[in-house]
């Protein structure tokens, strides 16, 4: 599975990339990802890539990604070139366009309203991703693995996993 995760610096894109990659790795998959640090972290557009399954590099070419996961609907378009026509978009906020399956999630609002702050939006998006790809992430197993992560808001994760937003 090839994923592109995008958003703006400071929205937790790198953390989300780590959480998803670490989860896949803990589930036993060979996993590789690429992050961008430095200047890009000061509020600019950021994207990271992640490959789950055997690969030597995390580089993804045009039209190759299965999933575009975005913490900011305004950033989706900038990474659309990576997405295959059968690809899935999961984004905070609202996006429409293209032949893609689109899952819009009001993660930021829900996180701020229910779970104590926008910083927990990532946990909701993570839950949504696990729920959308159960054959890869085996939700019950994933929840057990992620329960060990004390920094992750478990309520937000379960909310993302379970309910229709």
């Amino acid at each position, binding site marked *: 599975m090839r994923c592109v995760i995008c958003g*703006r*610096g*400071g929205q937790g894109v790198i953390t989300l*990339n*780590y959480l998803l*990659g*670490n989860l*896949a*790795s*803990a589930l036993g*998959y*060979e*996993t*590789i*990802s*690429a*992050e*961008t*640090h*430095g*200047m*890009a*972290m*000061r*509020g*600019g*557009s950021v994207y990271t890539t992640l490959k789950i399954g055997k*690969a*030597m*590099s*995390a*580089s*993804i*070419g*045009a*039209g*190759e990604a299965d999933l575009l996961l975005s913490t900011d609907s305004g*950033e989706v*378009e*900038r990474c*659309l*070139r990576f*997405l295959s*026509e059968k690809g899935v978009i999961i984004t905070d906020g609202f996006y429409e*366009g*293209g*032949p*893609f399956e689109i899952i819009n999630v009001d993660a930021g609002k829900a996180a*701020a309203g229910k779970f104590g*702050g*926008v910083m927990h939006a990532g946990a909701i998006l993570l839950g949504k991703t696990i729920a959308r790809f159960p054959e890869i992430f085996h939700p019950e197993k994933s929840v057990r693995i992620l329960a060990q992560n004390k920094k992750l808001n478990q309520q937000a994760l379960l909310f993302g996993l379970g309910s229709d937003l």
Partner: protein
Amino acid sequence: MGRGFFLGNELMAYAAKAAGASSFYAYPGTPSSEILSSFQKYAPERYAQWALNEKLALELAAAAAISGSVSACAMKQVGLNVAADPLFSVAYTGVSGALAIISADDPGPHSSQTEQDSRMYAYAAKIPVTDPANPADAFRLTKKAFEISKKYGVPVMVRPVMRVCHSRQSFDLPEETEAPRHGRFVKDPSRWAATPKHRAALHIKLTEKLKEIAEDFYSELEIKPKAPFAVVACGYPAAVCADMKDRFEGSADFIKLDMPYPIPEGLISKIENSYEKILVLEETFPLLERSFVTRNRVYGKDTGTVPSAGEFTADSCENALNLFMEKKPENKKIYAPAETAPGPKPRLCAGCGHRSAFFAIKRAAPSGIYPGDIGCYTLGTNLKAVDTCICMGASITFAESLKRENPEKPVICTIGDSTFFHTGIPALLNAKINGSPIAVAILDNATTAMTGFQPVPHAEGHITIEQTLKGLGINSVTVIDPYDIKASVAAVKAAIAAAKEENCPAVVIFRRECVTKTKMKAGKPPKVNPGCTDCGMCYEVFECPAITFNGETVEIDGASCNGCLCCVEVCPRGVIAEDK
């Protein structure tokens, strides 16, 4: 230790531990910064130091290795420029323990001034260099670098690119690590203090060793041609290309070379003689490509098959393979707008003290020239308060010379605290002894923020910036909180006047801790009163990211606002006010 999802930088640090490194020295720089902190994490009992700059880091590690210990240093590619002097010399003397020099390149560039190729330094200095393709490879090739260094007594470079440093990969950390190796210094002046006479002899020895190392390293690599063509790759491009093997299998053999320098001559001619044509993939300079002699059958950067600038990507790899194999590109369906609006540009954080310091500098001397430096505060370009940015420490030298060339203009340079200690000190001393009437703003945020909040020299109370300035003979020194914009403007004006009066640099220290590091709020967000004229001062010119214009008036995002209240001073209409 077990399985995990590790950064390339973490795995290189672990490899140093596994190879018995007893000390590690570094200066932070993206993408290399996490190497030293990871060494501290994995080997807390061993010695690790953030040196003041890369030249010091390399010298400290080299001296340890000359003393028979196993040591390492890490830096980014432009840091290696600073460390080039000891690099070339230690190549000749060699070491008696082991020395690995990790120099991380930044093709793109993503967070650097240049896309330079550290491997060219290895080539120029005549030291071996390994070129890892991904984090797991970085672990293996860092260990290998220590092995070569131990066996042959030469320093060895490891050159990861950003996509290796900042990639994560699932990896099983080996349990076994070597005990840290400490040596004792054995005097040998003909080596460690070699005069030019002995240097020639050392050079001859080094050249011989390189031949042996090349043969030794590649002794197990066999070239068994199955296809008419070959794709020869090293480093990150080899990983990208390996993931596309299905596109050329049968027509081209894939050969991954882990050490682009030195390469045995026999290996090069063997490849040349075995294939009709050869595509070479590497970053960023065509080092390996130019090792081939029969140029007309070799494709790569010099033939335009691979772009000569910019980062190597899956798309550039595919394009190069198509050109090389004379295949038509696949018709992929891409549903993306042909052009997207440029993304939001990076900005200083809400409440960052640098922002108000820049604002005050511009207000104090609107016609001034503002040489800048390297760090978060390079983003002062957005505020039009940074006119030049060349390399670490150059703000002060540029200020001195620009003032000489433009005597009628006030010249105010900005330099961060870490950069000041890195290379700013000799520059300021030079300006002092040459009577340069410049104003120097030291932006003291008590951390090396840009690269991930590494400690600064004055963090632990061994030295203060003020003590340093005193030693440099700078008499006019004002310390100011940049949140107090009025006082800041006055301080900059006074510094410009004092510099002119005394024909000597005058310094303003803007002291305010990095808010992103401290995660502290300075106060409550201000309130917005009616009367906004959309002049753009607060959200465009001052560009605090917490402020947006909603079509009617400005809005302040309570969550990201730091409560610094600088916008209150900035708004010319008094619309923004403290919420008492």
